């Protein structure tokens, strides 16, 4: 826990200091656009994420007394770096002007917002590649995110129950709700699109890229941002604002949920944790998985 706090505090401090520096260097000094002068960090972040993932030894979920380990340190790190990076990117991206709606900013604020966008890009790329490579190393974590044949049925049951319809029972959801799994697909496509088009846009600060390519990249980047915004708002609503998501939010800091919560909300997952051998869909143990 102490190590996790130290790493979290270090990354948070670097991020905040980076944003202050990025804002100051443009808004106060008015001299530097970090996408021009610090392009190398955009290139470095994905490799750093891959290297960090390669060096990480992950813990699988396990029942530990009256609580269940749901998020190991790596899950917490990748979630917050990706999530906070995404939040800042969306805010600065929309402020800079989306889909050719002109910027809401004036004078030096445009460069300052682009500089803050740059800092968030570095954070986002690190977190996303850290997650992506972690996923490459243990496919079962990826499979857990994909919708199953029960997606619609479980979602209707789950939210019907939440809305007070007594004819529905809580379905035996797995580690992730089926509705979350469907939303995950949107986030996956939006993230991949944003990264590809965003790297193109960042590369245009270093090398000459044809206007037609940039025009298409900007348009696709903006549309993907709207997809990401939709996912982000729904995610924040269900995971942080509505009380039903608070145990999970707490787990994103501590790593643990209670056994009662796991039994009530994720009966299918809890069953797998208790009797892993009897679950037919459980994938073969990946020798590379930590």
């Amino acid at each position, binding site marked *: 826990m102490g190590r996790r706090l130290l790493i979290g505090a270090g990354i948070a401090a670097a991020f905040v200091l980076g944003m202050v520096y990025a804002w100051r260097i443009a808004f106060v000094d008015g001299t530097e656009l970090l996408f021009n002068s610090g392009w190398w960090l955009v290139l470095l972040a994905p490799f*750093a994420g891959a290297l960090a993932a*390669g060096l990480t030894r992950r813990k699988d979920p396990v029942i530990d007394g009256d609580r269940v380990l749901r998020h190991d340190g790596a899950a917490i790190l990748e979630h917050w770096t990706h999530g906070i990076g995404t939040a800042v990117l969306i805010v600065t991206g929309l402020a800079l002007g989306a889909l050719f709606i002109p910027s809401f900013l*004036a004078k030096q604020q445009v460069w300052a917002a682009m500089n803050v966008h740059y800092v968030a890009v570095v954070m986002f790329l690190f977190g996303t590649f850290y997650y992506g*490579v972690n996923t490459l190393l243990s496919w079962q974590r990826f499979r857990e995110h994909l919708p199953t044949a029960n997606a619609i049925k479980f979602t209707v049951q789950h939210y019907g129950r939440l809305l007070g319809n007594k004819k529905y029972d809580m379905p035996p959801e797995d580690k992730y709700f089926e509705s979350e799994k469907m939303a995950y697909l949107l986030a996956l496509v939006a993230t991949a699109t944003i990264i590809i088009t965003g790297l193109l846009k960042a590369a245009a600060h270093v090398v000459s890229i044809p206007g037609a390519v940039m025009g298409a990249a900007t348009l696709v980047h903006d549309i993907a941002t709207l997809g990401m915004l939709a996912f982000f708002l729904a995610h924040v609503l269900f995971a942080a604002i509505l009380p039903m998501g608070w145990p999970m939010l707490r787990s994103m800091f501590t790593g643990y949920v209670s056994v009662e919560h796991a039994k009530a909300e994720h009966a299918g997952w809890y069953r797998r944790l208790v009797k892993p051998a009897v679950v037919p869909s459980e994938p073969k143990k990946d020798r590379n998985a930590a």
Partner: protein
Amino acid sequence: MTDKEPKQVTRREFVTSVGGVGVGAVLGGLFLRGFLLPDQVLAIPASKGYLLIDTKKCAGCESCMLACSMVHEGASNISLSRIQITQNPFGKFPDDITQSQCRQCPYPACVKACPTGALHADDQNGGVRTVDPAKCIGCERCIEACPFTPSRSLWNFEDGHAQKCDLCASATFMGEKGGPGGMQACVAICPMKAIKFTTEIPVQKDSGYAANLRNEHWGNLGYPTD
């Protein structure tokens, strides 16, 4: 004697290596760039063409504005013109009419301010300062950065991007080659011959270029030629 099985690279070893080599390559490249390569001086090439306007010849008919929007946008709309003529009904000659054309500045603040490289010196067209609409994100920094009022970089409210005089290099509706060395619609249309294209860097004044395009025929009509 048994053959020893060759050691296979695991996925984890592979991605760790890719990450490590990538981090090393980026940092190593920076080191080489910083210590082994000479510093580069990035200069924006001067434009090979400029528009001169004789303020004392201009009659304020706005034909140049209509021609400009027509050849660039395919529509006669003075709000889409890259050259702006404004008239002050209370002003006295020659300050009653103001012509605002881009000066193709040697040190263009608009190019420097653009965060995406959309506003650039066009190497293909004699270094004329121009906007690539496809790269423009609509931040309007160039409009704010232009040291002149009104800004010579303008907002195209129909297509949602910045635009400015490119000496007709991108005048797709003109039917003639534009840009430095080509034709300029405003020069061709002006009934007073008050606009001229030149390749010489004009003398700069705060109020505009010092241009006298009047000849003896102008004097014969009783107008001042000095």
